[in-house]
């Protein structure tokens, strides 16, 4: 049995849909962290079957829009003195900036690079987004 001990002060991102943990890990640049971090993939979950978990032994800034975009069902627990002092409820963001990039080769974002890439939520259930410039619709993190 793999054992990862609890943390004293930091953040635990739990209930991440299995398979998306590595994307959260990479987005938060945790591979460059100089403190303890753990990425647990395919952990057993009674509710989800399988889930990913990230434990961060430090308090860092987290872009909740990004987490909500990847998996609004994930939970973020802020830990102090080994106890959860705050739970952050994630939401599918209505608007995201510089998180998704437009893949339409006809979009102006493919040739001009000095402005933010902005997407607006189209369908909360499908988690689809529309490029502000060309209206192309993308589903960056499909519901699994």
């Amino acid at each position, binding site marked *: 049995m793999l054992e990862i001990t609890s943390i004293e002060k930091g953040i635990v991102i739990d209930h991440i849909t299995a398979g998306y943990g590595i994307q959260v890990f990479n987005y938060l640049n945790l591979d460059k962290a100089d403190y303890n971090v753990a990425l647990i993939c395919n952990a057993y979950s009674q509710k989800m079957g399988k889930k990913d978990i990230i434990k961060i032994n430090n308090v860092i800034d987290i872009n909740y829009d990004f987490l909500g975009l990847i998996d609004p069902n994930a939970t973020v627990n802020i830990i102090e003195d080994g106890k959860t002092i705050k739970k952050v409820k994630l939401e599918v963001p209505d608007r995201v900036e510089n998180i998704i990039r437009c893949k*339409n*080769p*006809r*979009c*102006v*974002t*493919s*040739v*001009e690079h*000095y*402005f933010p890439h902005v997407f607006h939520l*189209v369908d909360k259930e499908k988690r689809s987004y*529309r*490029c*502000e*410039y*060309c*209206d*192309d*619709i993308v589903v960056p993190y499909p519901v699994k």
Partner: protein
Amino acid sequence: MLKNRSLIDPNDFTREEFREIFDLGHQIIADPAKFSKSCEGKILATLFYEPSTRTRLSFETAMLRLGGQVIGFSEAASSSTAKGESIADTLRTVECYADIAAMRHPKEGAPRLASHYIHMPLINAGDGGHQHPTQTLTDILTIERLRGNVENKTYGFCGDLKFGRTVHSLVKFLSNYEGVKFIFISPEELRVPEYIREEVVRKKGIPFQEVDQMEPYMGQLDFLYMTRVQRERFFNEEDYIRLKDRFILDKEKMSYARPDTYILHPLPRVNEISTEVDDDPRAQYFQQAKNGMYVRMALILKLLGIY
């Protein structure tokens, strides 16, 4: 209040605001001389990064007929874009010289991007295969002059509905009106984009069909909006050649249409409407081009806050 606003997408203005523009357009048609000095001292910049005949000339003629003046370029190669200047910098510079600008660009979303960097009114004169809202103004003014209003009618769209920006803008606009129905006639490869079908048409509960034949549906239409298969939008020449002659409107097909079904086309035409149809009184595409100048006059007056 339309003063100092930009028109990039048909959803940028409310129905009431569009009504102001069309009402003024009808007034200009009735008495163009009354408006001949309205824009004295004002300058329109036409920034055309992609070739155009009707749209650029109608914008320029509109401003000249209002007593204003025009500056600009008609291809990217003759602007500082050829030196690598960004769209934002070009527009910020033009803003130093002009009071209002009309911009055409091959990349989708370029006018939206530009509008974030300037304060003067900007008009999208066509961006790639995306939107062309002033062609929609032209189309609507024409529809109103022919049939009184746009509501409770069945509109057929035929040809390249995937890259046809005039179709996207017109469908977006019409989707805000009661009783409209759409019949989309195209090869499967050139059907309307997902964002138009799902987010505009289906979301608003508008009845529509996607079909690949023209004749069986001609009798249902109040308007048939023909479009050209646009060579410049294809990355692959073979696909263009395979699809370009799929739908050609000729006298024989017109025989299936009702006596009150009008034919519109944003022009330019290649061969998708046979010239034998031009003399049919239901063919209204050249009148449509003329209306484009009047409605652009109205738009300029409104965005400059003169009327």
